C-alpha cells in the first residue's frame, strides 16, 4: 500500500526583492513511499527537503503536480489524523509545561481527554522525561525538547511520521535512544519519513534513501543498493608468497593492498570460487572475504559532487 505518492511535483516561491527570477524549490519531483518503510531524505541545505515535507502536510502549497497521502489528495485534510510531524527548529509556546505541550497538541489532534492523559504518560516515559512533565519547557535542554517534540509527533498514534532532523541536539546516548524508538515504531508497521544531515544515522535507521539536490531527485533506492560499489570483494589472508601475489595480479587482475589483503572484482560467483580454490591450493589461510561497500556519506558526497561538475 502506498502511503506517500508524489508525481511531477514542482514548487516555485515568489522572487525575492530586486530579483525577477522565481525560486524553484522542487522540479518534476516524483517519489513513492510504501507502508512500513523508513525513508531518509538526504540533500544539502536548500535542496528542497523541507519544502517537500511541508507540501506533504499542507503547510506549503504545490505549484504543479500530484501529491497524495494515504491515497488522498492533500486538499482533503482528514489524512492529517494519521500523521505525526516533528519540524526542524520546532517552537512550542514557551509558557507551557511539558505535559501541557502534549495536552495542547493532543486536543488539536481531536483526541479525548482520557486518551491524552494516558498517551502523555506513555510517551513522556518512553522518552525518559516523565519527571519533567510539570516543568516549564523554558527549562528543558535542547535534547529534552527534541524528545518532547517526538512525543508530540506520536501523541495521536500516527501511521506516518514525518521527522525533520529527529536526532538534532541530542547527545550520543539520546540519539541512540531516539533511533531505538524509531526502529521500534518500524516494528509496529509505522511508516517513517525523515530528513537528516547525519548520514551515518540514516544508514542505521532507513531502509530506503532518496537523494535530493536543487529540487531534483538524484538517486532513490534501498541503502544497500545505494551504497553498493559493484562486486568488489575484500580478501584478508595469511602472508601471501611472491608467486601467489604475482598470480593474483597477472592472472586474476586483483589489487594488492598489503601482504595480507587484496581486492578482487568479479560479477561471477564461479570466478570468485575459482580464486578461493586457487588460494586454498597454495595452503594460504583465508581470514575473511567480504563484499566491499561504500558508506552512505561517501556516496552522497560523490553524487552531489557529480551533479556540481555537470
Amino acid at each position, binding site marked *: 500500500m502506498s502511503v506517500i505518492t508524489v508525481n511531477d511535483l514542482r514548487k516555485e*516561491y515568489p522572487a525575492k526583492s530586486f530579483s525577477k527570477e522565481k525560486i524553484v524549490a522542487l522540479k518534476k519531483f516524483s517519489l513513492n513511499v510504501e507502508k512500513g518503510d523508513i525513508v531518509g531524505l538526504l540533500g544539502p541545505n536548500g535542496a528542497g527537503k523541507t519544502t517537500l515535507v*511541508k507540501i506533504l*502536510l*499542507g*503547510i*506549503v*502549497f504545490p505549484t504543479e503536480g500530484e501529491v497524495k497521502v494515504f491515497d488522498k489528495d492533500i486538499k482533503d*485534510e*482528514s489524512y*492529517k*489524523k494519521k*500523521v505525526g*510531524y516533528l*519540524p*526542524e*527548529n*520546532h*517552537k*512550542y*509556546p*514557551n*509558557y*507551557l509545561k511539558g505535559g*501541557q505541550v502534549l495536552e*495542547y*497538541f493532543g*486536543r*488539536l*489532534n*481531536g*483526541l*479525548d481527554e482520557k486518551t491524552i492523559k494516558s498517551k502523555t504518560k506513555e510517551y513522556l516515559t518512553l522518552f525518559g522525561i516523565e519527571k519533567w512533565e510539570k516543568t516549564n519547557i523554558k527549562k528543558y535542554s535542547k535534547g529534552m525538547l527534541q524528545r518532547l517534540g517526538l512525543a*508530540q509527533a506520536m501523541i495521536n498514534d500516527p501511521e506516518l511520521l*514525518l521527522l525533520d532532523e529527529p536526532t538534532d541536539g541530542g547527545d550520543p546516548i539520546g540519539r541512540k535512544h531516539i533511533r531505538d524508538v524509531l526502529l521500534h515504531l518500524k516494528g509496529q508497521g509505522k511508516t517513517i519519513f525523515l530528513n537528516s544531515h547525519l548520514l551515518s544515522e540514516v544508514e542505521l535507521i532507513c531502509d530506503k534513501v532518496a537523494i535530493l539536490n536543487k529540487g531534483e531527485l538524484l538517486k532513490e533506492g534501498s541503502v544497500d543498493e545505494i551504497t553498493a560499489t559493484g562486486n568488489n570483494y575484500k580478501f584478508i589472508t595469511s602472508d601471501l608468497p611472491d608467486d601467489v601475489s604475482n598470480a593474483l595480479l597477472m592472472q586474476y587482475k586483483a589489487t594488492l593492498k598489503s601482504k595480507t589483503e587484496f581486492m578482487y572484482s568479479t560479477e561471477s560467483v564461479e570466478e570468485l570460487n575459482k580464486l578461493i580454490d586457487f588460494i586454498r591450493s597454495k595452503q594460504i589461510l583465508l581470514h575473511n572475504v567480504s563484499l566491499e561497500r561504500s558508506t552512505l556519506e561517501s556516496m552522497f558526497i560523490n553524487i552531489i559532487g557529480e551533479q556540481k561538475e555537470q
Partner: protein
Amino acid sequence: MIFLALITNTFREAIQKKFILIVFLVISVLLILFLSFLSLESVESMNEFMMQLGQDSFRDAIIMFQNSLISNIPFYVVFVLLMIMTSSFIPSMLEKGNIDLLISKPISRTNIIIGKFLATNAIIFVVLAYLVGTIWLMVSLKSGIWHFPFLLSIVGFTVIFAILYSIILFTGLVTQNSILTILVNLILFFPITGILSAREQMIYTFVSSGPVKFIIDFFYYVLPKPWDVHAIMLKLIAGETVDSWQPLITSLVFMIAMLALSIFYFKKKDY
C-alpha cells in the same frame, strides 16, 4: 475539542505574557480612583452629587454616573491596553516552528482563524466582565440602585472590541509584526474613525465640495464605527430609543468582511 485547545492556549498565552495581569491591575487602580469620588453617605452629599450631574432623580443621577464611568478617557486607556495585549497573539502564532505544527494538525486553516478570533474575544469578555461588573457592583452597593441594563455594556464593549480585533487579526496576518499591528489599529481606532464619526462637526463645517463629502461618507460607511456603536450601547443602557442601527450593522458587516479576508489570505499563504 479543537476550539477548546485554541481558547485555553490563548488564555495561557495572555496570562504568561503578564499583560492581562497588568490590565487587571490598571482596571483595579481605576476602580479605586472612581470609588474614592463616590461619597454618598450623607443626605448633603447625595444632593450635591445630583446637582453636579444636573439630575432631579437620584436614580437618574446614579445611572448617568455609571454611564459616565464607561464613557470617559480612562476606560479607553483600558481598551487600548487590551488592543496592545492582543496584537501579539497572531504574530506569535505565525512564528516559524509554531505555525508549521499548527497547520500540520487535522484542523482547517479556517478553523484556526475562527478559533483564535473567538479565543481572543473570550479573554476580552472576561476582562470586561471584571471591569464593568465591579463598577456596577460598587456603585449599586453604595447607592442601593441596581441598574441591571448597565451590564449590557460587557457585551457591547466585547462587540466593539471584536469589530476592532478583526482589523488586528488581518494586519497581524499580513505584517506578522506586533508593533505595526498596534500602530495601524491605533491610527484607525482613534483619529480616523473618530474624525469620520464626527465628520459633520469637524469636516463639513469647512468643506462644502460634493465629491469630497461623497468620499468621506464612503469611508465612513465602509470603515467600522466604534464610537457610534458605543453611543448606541449607552442609549440602550439608559433605556432610550436608538434612532439608527446603521453604525452597528455596517460595523458588523465590516467585521465579517475582515474575517473573510483574513481566512482567504491565511488559506493561500505558504508558511
